[in-house]
């Protein structure tokens, strides 16, 4: 479990422990807002178990992935919907 892997969050490269979920990685990287709600409010994970859909981000170009359900992989590129355009 000491393996570290590299991911990119909104273009910024971060190192995380292998096995970390994308949601945990984003929160650790100081990115509590994952997406903007339909009225533009910042939102982040709530349930941590795939129910609420508040943690949706774009992973390797695929939109609407639930960050709490996906494990980080080396070279993964994650785009939040809360980043400055």
């Amino acid at each position: 479990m000491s393996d570290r892997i590299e991911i990119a969050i909104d273009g910024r490269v971060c190192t995380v422990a292998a096995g970390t979920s994308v949601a945990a990685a984003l929160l650790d990287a100081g990115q509590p807002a994952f997406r903007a709600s339909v009225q533009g409010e910042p939102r982040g994970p709530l349930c941590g178990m795939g129910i609420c859909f508040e943690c949706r981000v774009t992973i390797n170009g695929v939109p609407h992935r639930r960050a709490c359900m996906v494990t980080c992989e080396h070279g993964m590129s994650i785009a939040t919907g809360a980043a400055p355009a």
Partner: protein
Amino acid sequence: MTDRREVGLAVVGAGPAGLAAATAAAEAGAAVVVVDQASHAGGQIWRHRDRNALPEAARARLARFEASGAEHLSGAAVVDAAPGRLSVVTDRGPLLIDAHAIVLATGARELFLPFPGWTLPNVLGVGGLQALIKSGLNVAGKRVVIAGSGPLLLPVAATAAGHGAEVVAVCEQAPLARVAAFAAGLWRAPAKLADAARYRRAARGARFRTGWWIARAEGSAAVERVTLTDGRREWRVPCDLVAAAAGLVPNVELGAALGCRIADGALAVDRDQRTSVPAVFAAGECTGVGGEDLAILEGEMAGLAAIGRPVGALHAARDRAGAMVALIARAFAPRAELLRRADADTVVCRCEDVRMGQLDPAWGARQAKLATRAGMGACQGRVCGAALERMVGWPAGTVRPPLSPARVSDLAALSGNGG
């Protein structure tokens, strides 16, 4: 192309209940497949990125499952079901599973009751915080407030404290008398009492208060403080993370799609874990919230009964453990004040940003959907439905298949093979 599989028993959910069902049936010689949308086996309690961090008993259960010959399909969501058939969507494409019998072990989710500020980033569920810590969230040095209801508060406080968080407050909304009655009811489960004492010690330093709850949370980009109250006094607490949930609600959606009878918000089962639909069994927290030990017993019974083995020998143990369901429900029912926290401006449906002030209590859930789209977003009302049922008395509508979002091409492939 849709893959097809035929098995003796298909189990939905790889938590304690589903794993026990699959292990029992596979050890008895049945061809078993377990389907779970999560990337790892273990369900809400045993899923951990580092298995060595799990208690010995849990590791033994997982090892026994792996040795049983049952097959585990991870990352596979069951999006629809009919008796004898599951429609599954995986990363590798759609899959139809034909099974002589089905065990539903879909677990429970948290009950989130809206309060001002609950949509701020870093306001999580209680089990939600637990799940994120298990999947690698670093809470060291973070100021954490844990508030809500139920037996999950203290273990999660202990986990957070064990990972270096500063747990500033743990607030149980139930009054002390009910919490004490719950503890007294545990006399038949001394291990649980020992657990509780251990959690209290592990979360030492945190102030545990009964009869207190969150009135509101505030912050700009993320939560910065919460105001706790006992209805008379207020206590403002600066914090980095808030974990708030009012207990658990059974996941009955798949059972409902199969036509199973639902009673008191849970899948109704008979003494052998049979649902009202032939060859469909259910076990664990989708049949009522009673914790890990009960889930394991029910799972074992469901797995054996589903392949036609006798289960009478397990009735007594299950009935004893089953007393927990009523104990939990009685002790941790949300107080009226908890249901009245949302003000006109509080978002109730997070998917569609519908605010409390937009809803007319005279409506029902269906009318609210038509008028405001409340409950029509990505979560299909799983969050707001359970809350509004309690807040304004609207029976939560059933979720229609597909039970989780799936690509149109996958759904077309699944229905094309429907005959």
